[in-house]
Every structure is written in C-alpha cells, then in structure tokens.
C-alpha cells in the first residue's frame, strides 16, 4: 500500500458518504421534473436526514440488541462497499480488501441483518418485508454474480481495480458480451435498490412495500442511518456500473494530474445515470409482486447470455 494513496482513499470515502444523499436528491428532482412538478430540490434528502437525527427514536418494547445495531451494520457495510469501488481513480488502498465477489457478499451480509432486524420486533409488516426482501435478494445475487463474471473473464481477474485497468487499457473496444451484462446489471440495480418497477421507494401503502416494510419500525437516528445507507448503496451500485461498463476517464493509480478531470467525468456520469434512472422510474409502473421472479430471471438469463457470447466470440 502506498502511503500517498491514503488521502485518495479518504477523499473517496468522504465523497461517497457525504454526496450519496445528493444523488438521491437529484433523482427525486429529475422525477419531479419529468412529471411536470417543481420538486423539493437537491438538498431535500439532507433536510430529511437532519430532521431524523434531531428526533428521538421510538423503540418497540420487544426490540433486542440486534434491532439496535442493524442500522449501524447497514451503514458501515454500505460505507465500506462505497470505499472499495474504483470511482474516479484506481489504486485505492482499501480495494484489495474485497474483490467483486466479496462485494456481492457485503451486500448479502447487510441484507441479512436488515431482514433479521425487521423480523426481530415481530410485526407482521416486518416479517412480510423480510420475506419479500429475501425473495428479491436470492434472485438478484446470482444474476449479479454472473454479470460480474463476464468482465472478470475478459480481464482475467475478479478484482474491480484490475477489471477497470484492463478495460480502460483496451481503448474503445466494444464487447458484445458486455452489452448483455449491462442490461442485466441495470435490472439488478433496480431490484437491489428498491426502485420502480420492482419496489416503490415513495409509497405509503405498507402492504405493497418490499424495502420500506423493513424499516417501518425504525425512527429517529436509526431511520436516518438506514436511509443514508440506502443512498450510499445506490451510489455504489451506479459506481460499479460505471466501473464495469463505462470505465473510460477513471484516473490510473499515481496519475495525480488526471485526478480533477477524472472526478469531473465521474460526476457527469453519475448525473447522467441518475437522470436515466429517474426517466425509467417515470415511464414504468410497479410490477405485480409475482412478476419479480420473471424480471430477475430475465436478468439472470441475459447475464448468462453475456457469458456465452464471451465464450463464443471471445469478446
């Protein structure tokens, strides 16, 4: 590990954790614009977080320690995931901690804690949400793994840093296999982050919720941490997408001069991805619950097609 890269790691960590709510605000603002509304502004998620941190949390009487620590685990897990994905520079000192497969493991680990905590207080909604969340998770995770295998095969490594370096080194080469993987990844992203058409993050109808049902019993700072963690997760997913499918512009380790430009390029990509996500969410309605397996099955199939195409064409 290069000591000079510690500031880089810190910068990314602070940026990811600090700016993740801004992405949520941007998506909300875009959705408002697409629906001809004026919207609440980019800073709305920060206002919500401030409000929640100022409220004293209300705890269910039956809540165990698990229920209390789960929000911290969620937040910690997402912050870690956000810190190890190469966003605007490779050579992150933390990156060797986890390769792409371990990253999927971190997401699965936090999901299990979220589900356990939701069941901990014993309400019907919590258990229902946990059940549905696991349904989505167990279908999305294999699809995500297969998506990751295609670039891993191309670059002969499961490390995101190596994948980014080998893909950017190749200059604009078009991999047909990656096109399939990109579509599959977008579908997994929608499902994993509780976005329309799989889940509706804005709904107040508790019976329709997937992700929202998990946090129904949370309030105050616990809820703030969970919402913040969701925002980081979304930013991290978008960053993974960028690293895998449009990595051009990410600065190489040690190229300090490229750093500001790489950061600017990353911001532009995230803005575009956020607007695209908002557009998708505006155009689509929410699916019926039992269509989700078909949706994620399609994602899995596309990811496998990507792999097959890679073996057939070698690209």
């Amino acid at each position: 590990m290069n000591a000079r890269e510690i500031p880089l790691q810190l910068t990314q960590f602070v940026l990811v954790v600090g700016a993740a709510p801004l992405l949520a605000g941007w998506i909300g603002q875009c959705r408002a614009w697409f629906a001809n509304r004026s919207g609440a502004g980019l800073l709305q998620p920060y206002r919500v977080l401030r409000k929640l941190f100022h409220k004293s949390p209300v705890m269910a009487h039956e809540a165990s320690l698990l229920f209390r620590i789960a929000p911290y685990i969620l937040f910690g897990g997402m912050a870690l995931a956000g810190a190890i994905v190469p966003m605007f520079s490779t050579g992150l000192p933390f990156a060797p901690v986890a390769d792409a497969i371990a990253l999927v493991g971190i997401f699965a680990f936090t999901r299990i804690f979220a589900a356990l905590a939701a069941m901990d207080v014993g309400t019907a909604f919590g258990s229902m949400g946990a059940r549905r969340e696991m349904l989505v998770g167990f279908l999305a995770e294999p699809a995500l793994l297969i998506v990751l295998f295609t670039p891993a095969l191309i670059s002969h490594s499961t490390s995101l840093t190596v994948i980014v370096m080998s893909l950017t080194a190749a200059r604009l080469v078009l991999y047909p296999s990656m096109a399939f993987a990109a579509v599959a990844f977008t579908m997994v992203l929608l499902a994993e982050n509780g976005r329309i058409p799989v889940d509706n993050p804005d709904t107040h109808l508790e019976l329709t919720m997937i992700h929202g049902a998990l946090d129904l019993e949370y309030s105050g700072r616990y809820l703030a941490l969970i919402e913040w963690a969701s925002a980081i997760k979304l930013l991290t997913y978008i960053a993974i997408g960028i690293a895998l499918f449009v990595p051009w512009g990410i600065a190489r380790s040690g190229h300090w001069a490229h750093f500001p430009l790489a950061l600017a390029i990353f911001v532009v990509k995230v803005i575009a991805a956020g607007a695209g996500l908002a557009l998708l969410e505006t155009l689509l309605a929410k699916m019926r619950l039992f269509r989700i397996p078909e949706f994620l099955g399609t994602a899995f199939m596309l990811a496998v097609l990507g792999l097959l195409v890679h073996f057939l064409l070698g690209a």
Partner: protein
Amino acid sequence: MKTPLWQDIPWESVKGIAPTYRARVDKSQWRDVFLQCREATGRLIALWATDARPEQAEFMVHAVLLFADHWLWISYGMDETNPNYPDVSDIFPAAIRRQRAIYDLLGASSGASDTRPWLRHGAWLAREFPLRRDFTVSAATPGGHEESYAFVRVKGDGIHEMGVGPVHAGTIEPGHFRLAIVGDEIMRLEERLAYAHKGVEKRFESLGLIEGARLAGRMCADSTVAYTWAYAMAVEAMSGCVVPARAEWLRGLLLERERIANHLGNIGALSNDGGLAFGQTQFSLLKERWIQTHQRLWGHRYLMDAIVPGGVAHDLTHQDRAQMEHECNDLEQAVRILQDILADHAGLQERFLGIGCLTAARIEALGGVGLAARASGLARDIRTEFPSPPYDTLAPRIATRRQGDVAARVALRFDEISESLRLMRHILADLPEGPLISAPPMATGKQGLGCVEGWRGEVFVAIERAAPDGLHHVHIHDPSWQNWPLLEQAVIGNLVPDFPLINTSFNLAYSGHDL
C-alpha cells in the same frame, strides 16, 4: 290509494322520492317485505332505528327498500322493555352491520348470530344506548373502554393473520383490515370500521331543520353536494316547498362537478398506487384546477353549503357559464389524452386487469350499489331509476362495464367523467331562468325522504318529526355501508400487495360510514 303490495296494509304516500309508500308492519310482514324485495331484485337502501318514546312506549326500526317502480318505507314497533325485531341479514347481507349498529345505538336486538359491537369502540359502555331519549351525553360514562373484539379466526397450515390499520403509514382515514394470508395470497379479509364514529344522529336532534343542512354537508367532505342535496330534498318534502327550476338545475351542475372532481382524484390515486406517479401528478393538476373553480364561483373548494334547503346559495352569470364551457372542453381534451396514455401503458394495465373481480351475481347477492355495481354490469343509478329534476329532463346515459375488476372501475370512472361533462354542458346551455331559492321551508309534514346518486352511490336521508316536542330524527345513510362488504369479497384470492389498489378502486368512505 294505489298500494303496491299487501292490500291489507294501510300504505300512506311519502313525499321526497316518488312513488314511496310507508306503513307500519307486524313481525311477519317485516320479513315478508324484505323477501318480496329480494324476489323482485330490489335492494335495501337503509335500515335504522329510532326511539318513539314518550309518545308511544316503544322503539321503532325502519327500513327503506327499493323496488323496480316504487319505494317502501316500513316501520316495526318494538316493546320498550325488550326491544327486538326479526333478523333480515339472511335476505340482505348488508343488513348485518346495520343491525349491529342499531344494537349499539339503541339496544334493539335482531336475534342475528353476530352480536359483536360495530359502531361502539368502547367510547360508551355496553349498557348505554346513545340514541335513547333518556341518554344524555353529559351523564354518559367517559370513554376509553376498548374491549377485545373477536375477529373470525382462520386456521390451517401456513395461514397467517395480518392486521393493517387503523393507523396507516400514509395520511388516510382509520380502518382496520384483518387479512388471513398464505404467503402473499389473501384467503379472507375482515374489516373493522367506525373508528371515527361521530354520533351524528344524536347531534341532529339538537339542531333545527335548516341548521341541520350544514351538518349534513359535513358528513363526508368529498360528497358534500350529494349529502346536502339529499338532506334538502327530505326537508323540502316535509314542508311541501317547491324548489325553483333554476335551483334544481344548478344542483345537478354541482353534483356532476363533484363527481368529476372525485373521479379525477381517484384515477390519479390509482395510477400512483400502480407505481405510475406521472398519472397522479397529471390528474391532481386537473382536479386542483377544477376545484379552484369551485372556490372562485361558490366560495368553497369542495362546494360545502352551496345547496341550501329551498334552493341554492349562488347564481351563475352568463360569463361564468361561458368560462365553464371552456373549462369542460379543456378538461375533456386533457382527460382523453391521459386516458390514452394510461390505456397504452402495459405495466399499469397489467396491475389493473383481472384483479379485485366481482361478478354481477355476487354484487346482486350482497346488495352492492353505485359505481361498484355499475362496474360489474348492474345499471344501478338513482339518476335513471327514479330521476328527480333535473335528471328527468337531462336523461343521463348510464355507463356500465361488465368485467367488475379494477380496470373496469377505472374505465367506468372515465366513462362517467365524459357523461358528467355532457350533462354539465346540457345544464349550462338550457339553464332555466328564475329565482334561486323559494321561501324558507316550514316543516309541517310528518316525514320526508331524500336520495341522490353521489359519486360513490346513493346517499339517502330520512327525516321524521316526533311530536309532540317538535324534535325530529334524521337518519343519514352512505352507500359505503352496502359496498364495504363488497371489498371483503373482491380481495379473496388476490395478492397482498394488490389489496391497496383494489381498495382504492372502490374508494369507499370511512367518514360517511362512521356516522
């Protein structure tokens, strides 16, 4: 007098909704009339009870039933010491909850097997009966005695019970839904309502007839026109007051405007529940503009107090009418575009189609009314079945749909918006000249009825004067009493996450039910 049935009963004619006949019946006739009504595919409009003391030493239970060409209002007198009357819930299932409510309010028992309280949520004691003359609110035991309520238990492998409400995650009215589910499939739904019970019938006793119109307009804000009109109709029937033609036409205009406003709001809410926020934004915008016109012309966004006994409170100038014509054209155009967008949206249509299905036969059996009945092919609409002015001239073309699912209820709302716009144009074009209000009605008669087809279904009001103290008893009935049980049937076999969508497609009143 021409009597419809039972030549031996002394029927008297009642004003309000023509032709209505009223009579006191005995125990066997009580059930007999219900059975005949069922045979004739009529329906139960309202069932309530009053305290006839001290003039007569008895309680009275009343029912109003609709037959193909007339209405019957039957009353049965019950002994003061042990008030009971024959159970009719086997004939009209909608009577079950009304009978339970009658016990809660007056202590008169039907002998039906379900004796659980319905309106009483521990706000008063089981031995207290608020509608009895000897009950005074100030002397009543303070509330807060919530007792356990025996929900029907569903047992079996893998069956879970899930309670939703009365406090929900969103800002909506209170209602509890007890779902028995297997995985994400609904086996059974049991509703518990009346969390917002307001004791309105008791309150009416201390109000004058004319003052009462304001209270009637506050039963359920989204149906205030229907309620005030039905109330005014009953008061006018009692007093023999003749409403000027212009006022009647303006009332029709108000009722159709209210129908359009609510249908717009509901289609928006349904598309939001389906996850398409775009639809809600667009329909909210249309509804908002629509009710801003209400504010401008009638001084109230929801048209409260626009109708008063004897007529209407506001006139329309020629300029207003011209503007409203434009407004109708604009709305029609916007709604048509949005209807196409929603119809072409495969994702949303998939959410709507085939869920929350009710067959016409099922609705017939349960006695469903209004929009929910029309969406399954039953052309139940007071505006055409028993048209009062201005509908006798306007001749509304009642739309029906056959599928009875959420999609049918959405489509029907679109149909009704265009029909209401047609009726509005007709009214605006042919609005008769003349006064807006007749002389203040003096209640000289004994009783009066009023019934109006609101946007949910038929809103019904019965007023009866109880001599000698001049007090009168007002009974107000919301169509949601008949239609809440439909929801319990419609959700069976559907998915839990589809329940809110089905619920919104019926869009029944909590406030109107919890009177």
